[in-house]
């Protein structure tokens, strides 16, 4: 009899241990993030991983979202479309991800969007340039974007800033990298300049593997540009400026503030180098900046804290989305939640990031301009948050 009882207890124990799922374990929200941690452009995408690791480590330590941890599956696509496609498919079919994320060159977009549409999983661009399908008034229902830089909007602000700053006639030089997105924006800026009465004296679309930027700078200088505006990856923006300075060009230079901008302003110490962007610099010393810096130093992140803001904002937006997704989560619930997001950015941007049913980009884009001030030996704000309505 004793033997029978013992055997019965063993069977029960086996059942409890191996067959019944642990009652206390919480299933996570699974997010599939395909990112260019290596390869072309990885300098601006790779720090996003650091930001996500820090942000969700803290969230999960505090009990997760709606009582469930968040599991971010990050894989390196090396900026290769085929890798991004394979990863997206794996995330959706094997890992059962409820949301796909992308931070890589635009060449990786199409294959990921194809997977997203096929499996009806929304896709969130966080750090990569926003595809035009997220813009109002008829955005693609599956695509959303939180990235700071935005084609067709950035140049509107940039040119109005240049016009506002100049007391003398403007001879504008334009600089792009010879990739479709940058060239397209600079072509747009050229058209816009004409309509604003700004004379464009030269336009350069510089190929990415360029050993020497001086020949391009020579043309800009010879054309008599007194202002140069560049909307391109940071490498092109800053190397063109440095080449111009080597040629003893004394004009003013405006570039989009990518994540490297704050460190680079301090390195170059150039009073006539202006950067405009959507993210607040650490020189503002906000509470949120202190928190990011502290977390970065504590966890010894690979990238410095000044490069984590873009990723941090995307993580804030993701948290806001997941808060609205009740358990059990499904891609459809996530998609619905993404259609009505209001993410508080705590000063990292000029205002909240709002997505609506007909705007998957943001309703208002806030811009700020910074530069180095030699007199004060620090970075200063030249123009405070300026809203630009996105219709």
């Amino acid at each position, binding site marked *: 009899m004793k033997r029978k009882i013992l055997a019965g207890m063993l069977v029960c124990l086996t059942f409890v241990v191996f067959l019944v799922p642990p009652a206390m374990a919480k299933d996570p929200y699974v997010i599939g993030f395909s990112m260019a*941690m*290596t390869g*072309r452009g*990885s*300098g601006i*995408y*790779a720090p996003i991983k650091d930001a996500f690791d820090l942000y969700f480590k803290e969230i999960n330590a505090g009990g997760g979202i709606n009582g469930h941890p968040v599991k971010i599956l990050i894989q390196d696509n090396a900026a290769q479309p085929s890798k991004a496609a394979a990863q997206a498919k794996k995330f959706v079919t094997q890992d059962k991800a409820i949301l796909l994320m992308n931070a890589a060159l635009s060449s990786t977009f199409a294959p990921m969007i194809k997977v997203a549409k096929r499996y009806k999983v929304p896709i969130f661009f966080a750090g990569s340039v926003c595809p035009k399908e997220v813009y109002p008034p008829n955005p693609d229902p599956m695509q959303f974007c939180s990235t700071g830089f935005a084609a067709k909007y950035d140049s509107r602000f940039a040119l109005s800033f240049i016009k506002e700053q100049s007391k003398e006639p403007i001879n504008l030089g334009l600089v792009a990298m*010879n990739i479709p997105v940058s060239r397209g924006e600079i072509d747009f800026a050229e058209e816009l300049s004409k309509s604003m009465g700004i004379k464009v004296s030269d336009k*350069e*679309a*510089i*190929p*990415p*593997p*360029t*050993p*020497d*930027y*001086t*020949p*391009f700078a*020579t*043309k800009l200088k*010879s054309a008599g540009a007194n202002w140069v505006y560049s909307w391109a990856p*940071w*490498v092109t923006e*800053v*190397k063109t400026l*440095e*080449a111009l*300075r*080597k*040629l*003893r060009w004394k004009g003013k230079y405006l570039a989009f503030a990518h994540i*490297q901008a704050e460190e680079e302003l301090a*390195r170059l110490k150039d009073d006539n180098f202006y950067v405009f962007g959507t993210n607040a610099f650490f020189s503002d010393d906000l509470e949120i900046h202190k928190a990011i810096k502290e977390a970065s130093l504590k966890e010894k992140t*690979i*990238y410095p804290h000044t*490069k984590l803001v873009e990723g941090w904002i995307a993580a804030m937006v993701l948290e806001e989305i997941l808060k609205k997704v009740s358990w059990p989560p499904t891609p459809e619930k996530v998609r619905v939640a993404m259609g009505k997001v209001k993410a508080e950015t705590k000063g990292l941007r000029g205002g909240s990031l709002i997505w609506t049913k007909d705007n998957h980009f943001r309703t208002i884009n806030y811009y700020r301009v910074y530069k180095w001030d030699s007199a004060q030996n620090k970075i200063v704000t030249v123009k405070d948050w300026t809203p630009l309505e996105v219709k």
Partner: protein
Amino acid sequence: MQVIVNIVVLGSLYCLICCGYVLIYRASRVLNLAHGEIMSLGAYFLFTVAMSVGSHPALSFICAILMSLVLGLIIYQFLMRFMAGESAFAAVLVTIAMGILLRGLTTLIWTSQDWYPLQYLGIENASHLLMGDGVISTFGIIAVVSFVVIYACLFTSFKFTRWGLRMRAVGENPLFASQRGIRLHRYYAVSWALASFSAGVAGMIQACDSGLNPGMFHIGLKAFPVVVVAGLDSLAGVIPAAFIVALVEILAINYISPQASEVAPFVVLLGMLLIRPWGLFGTKEEIERV
């Protein structure tokens, strides 16, 4: 004047980069497609030394140059040595694999960030006024001087020294050279070390002039048409080829479109392949054999 300065600086940089391609090909008939990665490693060595050893520029450069030389020796001793006697195609594939490995290691060790060795070296890349309003940067001058010095040393050594004669013998007929008691592996290793050294110098100059990131290896690949135009086994051919490509590239920027500069070297390359497939000073038989 500025256009001429730009051509001279770009041509000099191409000469420095392409020297390594030719040295290795000439000695061992291996086309090293990891040359761009070796070039960027030279720059990373300088950055690392400048950051860790201190800000003494000359010492940092010497250490980084020595490290580049050793890198070439290590690559030969532990990898390419085993390809001796194998088909040229197999050796090229090995260099491609090595390039991928070096790129991965570079990102793992130094991350994808942009680095500026000059910040740590404590020197400035000042600009200097030339005649006719031309301007050249300090590292532009260093590129030109390095090209002249390195090529002068190489030509003199090949012509007048015993090891130079042996290097040429190894390149021209390894079997006979071996029968005459010349240790082939020793001279192959020297050619890899010299190639790594010249590529490293090019990388260091490039990094000091305009910064450093893992994408720098593309510049090594961009210089490749120069080698084919020169003739794969002709060091003397590299000089005119580099300046022709630089001239066409800069004229394209000035008179056609900036985007045209991307294809200009390849237009020259195609033209050369149509007219003289073995290059300006290359050996006709060699290119046919490959």
